[in-house]
């Protein structure tokens, strides 16, 4: 099966070769700076070739390992761009680490990105699971990278290792069951054929879903995320919150397709969404540490995204596209500002109370932070406003009244904790320079400016026409109707 099939998306190839070259270079002479440069160039190259592939066209019949369409191009580009931003965030600290560990960090980081990309492109259980594990294992290394206090990093890495292992096991069990039912490793929900009882494919689907929810940190499976993100370095926390979630969500959409889900899945998703939005927002209310708060808010945002996933139709593609972009840009912005503000590696600067008076001490950072937080809360002029508007529109269009209510309640709760940070920053400074990083870092300033521009421009002048980029199963008759509707909407 693999022998004759040489279809391979180009970014995977570029990234793999890049990793090998950086590895070889490390063998010659260990240098953090060189590795960082190699990593950045590789990511740039991968981003440049994100729409290309090698080998023959992926056959619609038969099994292929990978697939490439608009959806993969979009999510892969988004994860590559986010990875670049995060690499830029960790540039200075990694360069300071010295040769011994700095280049290991870069290698792990690139491996993690490769895993995420493999998940995005996979059309088969094998590359999906490999990508998942690649991402998980390198993330464990990355989380443990924290030096001061080292125990926090190790503890977080341990937690991540155990829970990620458990979820992988559940996922693998599900994949095994699915293979048993269909006899194929194709990346799609199993359908019972012949005399197989209907419960078997259902069990397989639910187990795979549970595994994905674990990685996505939807609510009953969310406990690990705040601890891990608090224990990890700030850029690694950003990687967890953005790149790994994009990858998982991308494959979730790929796996279940963007159509109406079967009833039992619908019910499960319904319950999970309600729990995720309320749980994430309520947890975030009491947090005093900014990474923990961002972890909880990212749980809630996954819930909002799942609403769009559950409401197929005219507006879905636009909602998911814009929401992913809005979430990534705003979250990356918050983490970039956190990196610029907090001294490397220490626990300082991550406690919200230490941000008191930021508006008077560093007005630019504080203004950008305000914009990012407002965008996350869904208030104009940031792109998050449009994103939340579209999510609500999909919900209303599908008459998912309960979900829309939960969205409103969650947004109000969310507003409180986002505003609270702004309030703290607006307050008069109590202890002017305690725990604040005063040296300016031009690369971070540039990154924050770029993300700010993206957030504002995206909010004011969103893409004129949002193309239907979601994966559709071509066999289904609804697909064609959908495009007709879409055209009608465009006109």
């Amino acid at each position, binding site marked *: 099966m693999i022998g004759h099939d040489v279809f391979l998306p180009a970014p995977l190839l570029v990234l793999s070769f890049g990793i090998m070259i950086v590895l070889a270079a490390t063998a010659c002479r260990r240098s953090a700076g060189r590795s960082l440069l190699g990593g950045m160039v590789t990511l740039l190259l991968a981003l440049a070739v994100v729409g290309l592939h090698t080998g023959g066209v992926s056959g619609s019949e038969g099994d292929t390992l990978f697939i490439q369409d608009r959806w993969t191009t979009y999510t892969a580009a988004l994860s590559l761009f986010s990875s670049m931003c995060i690499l830029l965030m960790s540039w200075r600290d990694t360069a300071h680490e010295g040769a011994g560990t700095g280049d290991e960090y870069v290698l792990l980081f690139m491996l993690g990105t490769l895993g995420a990309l493999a998940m995005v492109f996979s059309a088969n259980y094998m590359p999906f699971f490999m990508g998942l594990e690649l991402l998980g294992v390198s993330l464990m290394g990355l989380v443990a990278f924290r030096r001061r206090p080292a125990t926090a990093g190790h503890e977080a890495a341990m937690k991540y290792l155990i829970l990620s292992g458990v979820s992988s096991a559940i996922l693998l069990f599900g994949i095994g069951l699915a293979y048993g039912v269909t006899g194929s490793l194709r990346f799609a929900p199993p359908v019972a054929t012949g005399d197989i009882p209907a419960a078997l494919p259902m069990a397989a689907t639910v187990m795979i879903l549970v595994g994905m929810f674990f990685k996505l940190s939807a609510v009953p499976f969310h406990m690990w995320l705040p601890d891990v993100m608090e224990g990890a370095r700030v850029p690694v926390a950003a990687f967890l919150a953005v790149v790994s979630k994009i990858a998982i969500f991308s494959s979730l959409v790929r796996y279940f397709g963007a159509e109406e889900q079967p009833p039992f899945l619908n019910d499960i998703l319904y319950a999970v969404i309600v729990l995720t939005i309320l749980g994430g927002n309520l947890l975030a209310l009491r947090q005093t540490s900014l990474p923990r708060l961002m972890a909880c808010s990212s749980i809630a945002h996954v819930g909002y995204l799942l609403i769009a996933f559950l409401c197929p139709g*005219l*507006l879905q593609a*636009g909602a998911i596209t814009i929401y992913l972009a809005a979430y990534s840009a705003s979250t990356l912005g918050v983490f970039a500002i956190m990196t610029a503000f907090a001294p490397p590696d220490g626990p300082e600067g991550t406690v919200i109370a230490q941000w008191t008076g930021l*508006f*008077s001490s560093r007005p630019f950072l504080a203004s950008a932070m305000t914009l990012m937080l*407002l965008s996350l809360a869904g*208030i*104009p*002029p940031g792109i998050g*406003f449009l994103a939340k*508007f*579209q999510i*609500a*529109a999909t919900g*209303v*269009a599908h008459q998912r009244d309960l979900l*829309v209510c939960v969205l*409103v309640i969650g*947004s*109000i709760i969310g*507003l*409180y904790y986002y*505003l*609270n940070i*702004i*309030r703290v920053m*607006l*307050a008069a400074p109590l202890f002017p320079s305690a725990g604040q990083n005063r040296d300016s870092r031009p690369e971070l300033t540039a990154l924050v400016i770029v993300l700010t521009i993206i957030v504002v421009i995206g909010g004011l002048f*969103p893409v*004129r*026409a*949002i193309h239907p980029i979601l994966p559709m199963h071509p066999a289904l008759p609804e697909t064609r109707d959908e495009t007709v509707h879409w055209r*009608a*909407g*465009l006109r």
Partner: protein
Amino acid sequence: MNALPALVLLPILGGGVAWVAGRIRPVPTPASRDAAWWVVLATLVMETLLLALVTFGHQPHAGPWLAHFSMPWLPAMGIAVRLDMDGLSLSLIWLSLVLCFPCVFLSTRQVTVNAGAFHFLFLATLTGVIGTFLATDLFLFFFFWELMLVPMFVLIATWGHEDRQRAAMTFFMFTQGSGLLMLVSILGLVMAHYRTTGVLTFDYVTLSRTPLSPALSMLLMVGFFMAFAVKLPVVPVHVWLPAAHTQAPTAASVLLAGILLKTGGYGMIRFNVMLFPDAASRFAPIAMGLGVAGILYGAWLSFAQDDVKRLIAYSSVSHMGFVLLGIFCGSRMGMQGAIMQMLAHGLSTAALFLIAGAIQDRLHTRDMRRIGGLWAAMPRLSSAGVFFAVAALGMPGLGNFTGEFLVLLAAWHVSPPLATVAAAGLVPAAMYALRMVNRIFLAAPRAGLRPGPDLPARQMAVLACVMALVVMLGLYPQPFMTFSLPLPVADMTGGEDGAP
């Protein structure tokens, strides 16, 4: 060249320039603060000229609207930048601009900390308000509705008084939370329209022709009503108002009381009564009851306050009850009364907040138990205070009386008992207004109180202009009454089927 987008964008652009002007020097000096102030003044003058051009110039192709502007924004979702102006929006924009001048002359020059940013936020709020008054695309309306909250939040939270942060949070949470209900209603209306016609649009005129079932239209109308009721405010959801008005810096108090409350009234007229006329008439008894409750409750609480700004804030709740009552009377007269009340209340309450701010600047307290007998030391300020307090209590011949009288008359046609109860609210109004006048201005001077200088002549001249307007609204209201009525939905053109 269409003036409407310029009208919306000019304040925020001018605010940006003011911010830059305030930050040119690394260490702020009085000169750079004044630079920001002058930029703001120039922006307001330009904006006024532009508005005068729109008011008195002739627009050849505007149709029934006074001015019309349309540009695609998000065509895939049927969202466009649609700005339309009728008499109602024009008169409310005039009110906003007229109020900005006394603000700038009397209060914003006193801001010393970060003056550039203060002026930027001040003008950004103005942009949000003007946009709200002009937008006829529901998405755009919601965009501006949310947009004006952010600068106001920062104004209160940064430059406000002792308990500012809590007040700012309450203000934002209430308005934004109710705004989300309006968002759901907007989407519900759009989707109902899409389901019946297959056209996805956010255009006000097109959506006003959507056939709706009674239950659905009631539901949607209540969603809109919640957002506007919080902003107006209507009694059970008014709790954010006293804190926000009291803690805000003077200029922000004026904006809040003078203009932001009017966006609530404007929204009720434009979106509740005109978009869902049937549902609104069925809802009218409840709304009118809430209005009367607001009149009495606001006046009652106002009577019990010792804090000057809090007293004025509660009197706003009472006055806005008349607006709610008038809007839901369902008659032309009630609507005229509500609009007159909005204009007159905007002028008189804003002036009262300015005077309260001036008193606080000079005496460093708002507690009426510690202020007294200012007439001897500050005759100009005191006379202005007495004038506007008397206007607020509804003295015949002044603007507020016209509004209240028309509203009561219209309410009498609907329900005499209700009108009687509402009229009874004028008694406590007279009591709290005269009590305030007595304690602050007329009583014997307190020992240990060192009054500052009186209002300078220039500021007094600005206040005199506001007084003249209040008198004009009271003595010769007819042109304002006919001019400021909203354009009826039936006469509206535009949207998809108007211009294919």
